[in-house]
């Protein structure tokens, strides 16, 4: 394919992915706004004042970066896993396999879809949070946006790997429900690990979600429980690793070619 054709093919796939989640916006964009509003009402406005300050911030203020990350991770992951498994299930993946698009371009198109949904959800949840905490100010815009994109890319790639191996709709629900959600909840969304006993604090440091949530919190609040260079390095490392795995699986045709 010539460069112009290649660019157009990537734009087409990316557009298709955007069109997919925008078409079902009630399922894809509204639920995080509703769920987050409930979190803010219950944990922020009702229980939050009784908890008091966390790391020197109002509890609702402390929760905002974590809740945004929770929504972004879930959105980016579930967008790619359900979209790519959907095309596998409907055999529409053959449209891509028959076409001259290289594997990296196919992966790129799906990641664009995941990142777009992740970022849109991140903005929606942030806007919802402003309703409950209007005086919120972002400490470091550059880091916040950078981490938002890194996180969306990383979890889009993870969703793609999950979709490749998935053989049923159950398979695309197992990882988000039993792995991602518990790790995110235990990764510092609702609390600082500094309040934990040493043993639980050390165990928490092995949770990769902690680094994602805290790097984003550093961007939004200027406060973190982990080393930012280490966390960014980990995220970039995971992105390189997952990209390599995705391209290898596509080349071998695992889960998509007989």
């Amino acid at each position: 394919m010539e460069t112009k054709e290649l660019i157009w093919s990537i734009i087409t796939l990316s557009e298709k992915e955007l069109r997919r989640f925008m078409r079902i916006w009630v399922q894809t964009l509204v639920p995080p706004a509703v769920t987050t509003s409930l979190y803010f009402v219950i944990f922020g406005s009702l229980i939050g004042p009784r908890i008091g300050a966390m790391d020197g911030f109002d509890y609702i203020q402390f929760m905002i970066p974590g809740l945004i990350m929770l929504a972004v991770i879930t959105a980016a992951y579930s967008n790619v896993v359900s979209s790519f498994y959907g095309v596998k299930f409907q055999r529409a993946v053959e449209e891509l396999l028959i076409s001259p698009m290289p594997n990296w371009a196919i992966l790129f198109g799906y990641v664009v879809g995941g990142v777009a949904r992740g970022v849109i959800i991140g903005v929606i949840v942030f806007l919802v949070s402003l309703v409950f905490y209007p005086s919120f100010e972002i400490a470091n815009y550059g880091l916040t946006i950078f981490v938002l994109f890194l996180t969306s890319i990383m979890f889009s790639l993870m969703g793609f790997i999950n979709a490749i191996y998935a053989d049923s709709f159950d398979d695309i629900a197992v990882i988000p429900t039993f792995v991602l959600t518990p790790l995110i909840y235990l990764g510092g969304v609702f609390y600082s690990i500094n309040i934990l006993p040493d043993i639980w604090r050390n165990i928490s440091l092995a949770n990769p979600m902690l680094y994602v949530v805290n790097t984003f919190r550093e961007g939004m609040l200027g406060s973190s429980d982990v080393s930012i260079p280490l966390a960014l390095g980990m995220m970039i490392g995971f992105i390189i690793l997952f990209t390599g795995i995705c391209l290898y699986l596509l080349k071998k045709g695992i889960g998509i070619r007989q």
Partner: protein
Amino acid sequence: MSEYALEINGLKKVYSNDVEALKGIDLKITKGDFFALLGPNGAGKSSTIGIISSITNKTEGNIKIFGYDIDDNFPKAKSFLGVVAQEINFSQFEKVEDIVITQAGFYGIPKDVAKERCKNLLEKLSLWDKRHDQARNLSGGQKRRLMIAKALVHEPKLLILDEPTAGVDIELRRDMWDFLSDINKKGTTIILTTHYLEEAEQHCNNIAIIDEGIIVEDTSMKELLSRLSIQSFVLDLDEELQDIPELPIFDLKSQDPKTLIATLTKDDDLNTLFNKLSDHGIKVKSMRNEQNRLEELFIRLVKEKDGN
């Protein structure tokens, strides 16, 4: 550029369950051909098409499309290829128009060009009125025509049709064949698999028969049909027949009192048969082949192979 639209050399496929679907097939299809690839279920047709289309991994061998190897020059080789798969393979929730335009985009065709081509194809395939409908709301025949539109939107030079008329009613089937014959005349090479053997007989110039992963026949349709040593004709009679006359050369059987089945060898001529029947006072109102000739040969070739 190669004189062949498709060259297959030593193609083998062994599935993970150790089923050997293709045992080293060789096939050459010339440019502009209308080619039939036939075989019983499980013979290896779909595996062959799957490998050409990159939806199945090959175990061994190589494939060239217009001289471009699908391993060494993947994008170029694929740009020549359009495939109408046997199973529906588009997103059922997308609109008809979006499916065709998106498919064009995967080949790097800009949206304005894709829109124009989509309009032409949907009009020719009687789907223009359905362009804003979700694909899941189309009938079986409409979905199949959408598959054809999708496969043609990038104007491929080689079109593979895997059971294209399955589930399509007679009138639309005729329109589809007219359309496909037209694009073949304009230069598109077509490879067809079908269970309607009369369609293959009617439209294809050359034929390969595959069985148990081996090409058992690869020749011209004319040559293959000329191998028929006997032919049977159904004769509709003017009046009911009491007794079947005994004719020295021809084998006659009664299907019912007003229908005879006459079996002729290659050397017999129909004039002699009609004269003899006339001598016995039998008038023939109409006549037709007892069954599809290709079907007869197909069954014989497959049986011969099984006998070996």
